[in-house]
């Protein structure tokens, strides 16, 4: 646009004016919006689906909880193999040659064996078999521990997590430890122990959330509520409430190839990182939109502004 035009458009308005009470407009707006908001809150309330606790999980799906505990001991759970920022088990997600998470390192160490199973078990007084199992475990070296846990994890997986069908084998104290944790969770003492990890003040729920997510119970529950990322879950809410609808564009990329191609495809496996980059670029684009050629000419070509200023255009014969 010409400088002359910018000058005219930025100069104080010299044309016709009308009376306009900004303050009254603002106050009326607050009152009206408040009334509508109060009405909707009374009629519909807001999302209130109760949080999942370990007690609930261990009671409703004991086999799933038990098997997950074994996976935590064997390090075969989702968290166990995650990589940065929790551990060094894998390289994590990458943008081509860039492994950003790995580069920034393990800033939030999570040791699934001790943080999820052993330390919580030591905070309560256990029945004799569990107490003995704990002693045996603590007296063994890491290699033996890992052999026991891996053996039992594999055996349990083979029989579809049906504990009763597991054949005899070299499992050490692992079955008793998992049983002990199950009892502890069912009694409701695991939630607090996972959070506090032996401390007093604690507000970081990372360990609970990671453990919860390693099992099927939590995931199945979210699938039932349509909250999975592959079904636009990012912008959904529980029940019939509106979620973060403004994330539609972010959520959109997860629904299309190559990002929904599954973990065997490089873009599928690293979709999280690529989509983050795309959204970062698009956000920047929005911020500097007036400088982007073609896009910044659209309002001149598609004349929606004639509707906005309809009266004025009529009055001024434009």
């Amino acid at each position, binding site marked *: 646009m010409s400088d002359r035009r910018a000058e005219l458009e930025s100069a104080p308005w010299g044309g016709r004016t009308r009376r306009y009470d900004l303050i009254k407009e603002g106050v009326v707006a607050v009152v009206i919006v408040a009334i509508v908001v109060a009405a909707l809150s009374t009629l519909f309330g807001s999302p209130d689906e109760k949080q999942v606790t370990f007690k609930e999980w261990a009671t409703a799906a004991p086999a799933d909880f038990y098997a997950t505990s074994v996976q935590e001991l064997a390090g075969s759970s989702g968290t166990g193999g995650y990589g940065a920022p929790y551990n060094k088990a894998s390289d*994590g997600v990458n943008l081509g040659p860039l492994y950003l998470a790995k580069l920034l390192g393990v800033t939030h160490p999570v040791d699934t064996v001790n943080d999820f199973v052993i330390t919580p078990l030591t905070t309560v007084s256990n029945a004799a078999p569990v107490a003995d199992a704990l002693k045996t475990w603590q007296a063994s070296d890491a290699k033996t521990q890992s052999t026991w846990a891996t053996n039992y994890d594999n055996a349990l997986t083979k029989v579809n997590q049906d504990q009763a069908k597991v054949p005899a084998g070299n499992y050490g104290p692992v079955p008793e430890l998992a049983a002990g944790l199950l009892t502890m969770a069912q009694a409701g003492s695991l939630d607090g122990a996972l959070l506090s990890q032996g401390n007093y003040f604690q507000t970081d729920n990372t360990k609970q959330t990671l453990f919860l997510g390693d099992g099927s119970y939590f995931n199945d529950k979210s699938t039932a509520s349509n909250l999975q990322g592959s079904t636009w879950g990012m912008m959904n809410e529980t029940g019939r409430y509106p979620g973060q609808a403004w994330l539609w564009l972010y959520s959109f990329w997860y629904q299309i190839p190559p990002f929904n191609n599954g973990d065997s495809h490089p873009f599928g496996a690293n979709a999280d990182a690529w989509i983050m980059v795309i959204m970062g670029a698009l956000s920047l684009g929005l911020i500097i939109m007036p400088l982007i050629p073609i896009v910044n000419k659209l309002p001149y070509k598609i004349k929606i502004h004639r509707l906005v200023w309809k009266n004025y255009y009529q009055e001024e014969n434009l």
Partner: protein
Amino acid sequence: MSTSTEKEMWVTKLRKGWQKNLPVEKLLPDTQPAYVASWIYLFGVATLASLGLIIATGLWLSFEGASWYHGSNVGHFVNSLHFWSVQFFFVFMVVHLWGKFWMAAWRGRRMLTWITGALAFVGSIATAFTGYLVQSNFDSQWISYEAKDGFNSVGIGSRFTVTNFGQMLLLHVAFLPVIIGIITLIHVLLVRAKGVVPPIDAFNKELGERK
């Protein structure tokens, strides 16, 4: 005091700049240009009104605490007020954004008004996201579990820990609202200082352009 020392002082510069760009007559005028007559202008004000309600209900929630808003009827009602204010805030803001786009409202050296608006939009998404994380219900558990992968994937998760309720609560009630408040204040003051942008064809005659 001589004029030369006056010029050097920062306080003088600030006062003069303020008086020149935003005298109180401009901040609180009695009139607006004749073209400020469209329903689209209501959406900026409506966004501002919803933001006010969000802050008021949010403060109420903060004083009672995180276990109150899902643990009591009154708490849950205030939680609902906060929730619906946010939904309206976004609806109004998005209509406002599209309106300003089709009006090319960045014309006449109003680029910074657009930029502050867009920053408010992006910042509001971050704020709302942390809000969904501190609902302390099933959804917030799930969102934190899922979202951690997105942030971890590009390394943001090494510092910004969505599964850390304490961190999210502090960002949601302190840091992010303050940022949004400041950006919004600048945004609205810029609109007052620059005046409402004239219609695209307002100066066709002066510019000798065809319509």
